[in-house]
């Protein structure tokens, strides 16, 4: 083995143990080759020096300066978000409560009305007040027309309701088709509970004949809009307690506008 090959071998074997034949070959060559021995000595000495090279240690001041330099490039720390937890919690509770209230309100609005004969009967009665000069009568009826078909009985002040109920008042009715000809103005609207409330302002009960009546769709739309908006104010108290003053004013107004 020539010197160049031997040095290649030594350089490559530094990271692993030279064993067996390699070790023997190297030892044998080095014994007889002072130049290669010198080469190996220099290599060992160099690696030993590198191995013992002590890096300077940064002084405390240097370390602080370096940290200051690094810190100046870092984003500004923000306050711990834990401090805002109570505020977040409060906002969450308020949002939850508001959401729940809105959901309940909507569900209530969407809830199909059921025809509770007892309740409706009471409500109707409570609203009938013959002391009003224009006699605003209201009947609470379920939204579904098939459950709320009424038969008009002119002149006697009674309205027959499905289920054998009888409503007071000369004429108060709602069906899918109610016509105001014959001297009556019917104002139906949907309450926040899904009931159809029918206000009837009648100038002369005797002039209303039995039969099917219909309100023109345009006028119904206008009236419904107005009354629905007003009715929203009753949402929390609506159980047959339509404010009489409101009904009075409304009836007065509608009477004037629907003079037939």
């Amino acid at each position, binding site marked *: 083995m020539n010197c160049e090959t031997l040095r290649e071998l030594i350089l490559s074997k530094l990271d692993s143990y030279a064993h067996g034949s390699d070790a023997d070959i190297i030892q044998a060559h080095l014994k007889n080759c002072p130049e290669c021995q010198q080469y190996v000595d220099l290599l060992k000495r160099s690696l030993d020096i590198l191995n013992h090279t002590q890096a300077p240690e940064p002084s405390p001041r240097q370390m602080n300066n370096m*940290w200051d330099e690094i810190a100046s490039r870092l984003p500004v720390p923000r306050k711990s978000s834990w401090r805002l937890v109570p505020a977040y919690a409060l906002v969450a509770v308020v949002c939850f409560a508001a959401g729940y209230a809105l959901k309940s309100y909507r569900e209530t609005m969407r809830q199909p009305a059921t025809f509770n004969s007892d309740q409706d009967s009471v409500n109707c009665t409570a609203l009938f007040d013959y002391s009003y000069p224009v006699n605003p009568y209201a009947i609470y009826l379920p939204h579904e027309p098939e459950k709320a078909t009424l038969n008009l009985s002119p002149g006697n002040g009674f309205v027959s309701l499905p289920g054998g109920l009888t409503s007071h008042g000369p004429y108060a009715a709602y069906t899918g088709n109610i016509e105001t000809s014959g001297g009556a103005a019917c104002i139906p609207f949907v309450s926040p509970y899904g009931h159809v409330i029918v206000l009837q302002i009648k100038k002369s009960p005797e002039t209303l004949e039995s039969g099917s009546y219909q309100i023109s769709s345009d006028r119904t739309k206008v009236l419904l809009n107005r009354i629905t908006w007003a009715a929203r104010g009753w949402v929390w108290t609506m159980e047959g307690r339509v404010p009489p003053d409101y009904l009075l004013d409304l009836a007065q107004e509608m009477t004037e506008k629907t003079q037939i």
Partner: protein
Amino acid sequence: MRSDSRKQFENIYQRNIRRIYGLAWKLSGFQAGEAEDLCQETFYRAFRSFHTYTDENHESAWLTRICINTSREMWRRRAFYSEQVEPQIVSGNADGTARSVENGMSDLELSGKLREILKTMDPEFREVVVLRHMEGYDTREVSERMDIPEGTVRSRLKRAREIIMDRLRAGRGGSHEL
């Protein structure tokens, strides 16, 4: 940035600054100013990737790898430097004849020569020498920290030693055939 992250990172800095500074000093060619720059850049980059740091047991290896990569980039940016500085490994005598480093050279002189060699050496060879022979990692650890195969580490180490020896012996008038 959360203040607790910053505090946590400051602790990492305090634990590792001395070691990383030493490594930076060696990788940057034994220059204090360069070492400081490299150190700062290393920790700054470490902080930027702090959100990906999860393994506290490998904190040292994580920083070492960042330091090596940063060093490589810094050297690449300053490539002109190595082109302008000619390797002056073996100083010649006044009459122009080079003298052998093997004979009559103190450890201090040899140390100076070795630093010059490393300073002007290709970064990929300098890195393996620094990690293997100055930081004391074995070839497997070097391979992990440099993210290269162990076989590549071995071949680079062999080549790096050759360069060192060649340059140390260059003053004898070229390679010595026996």
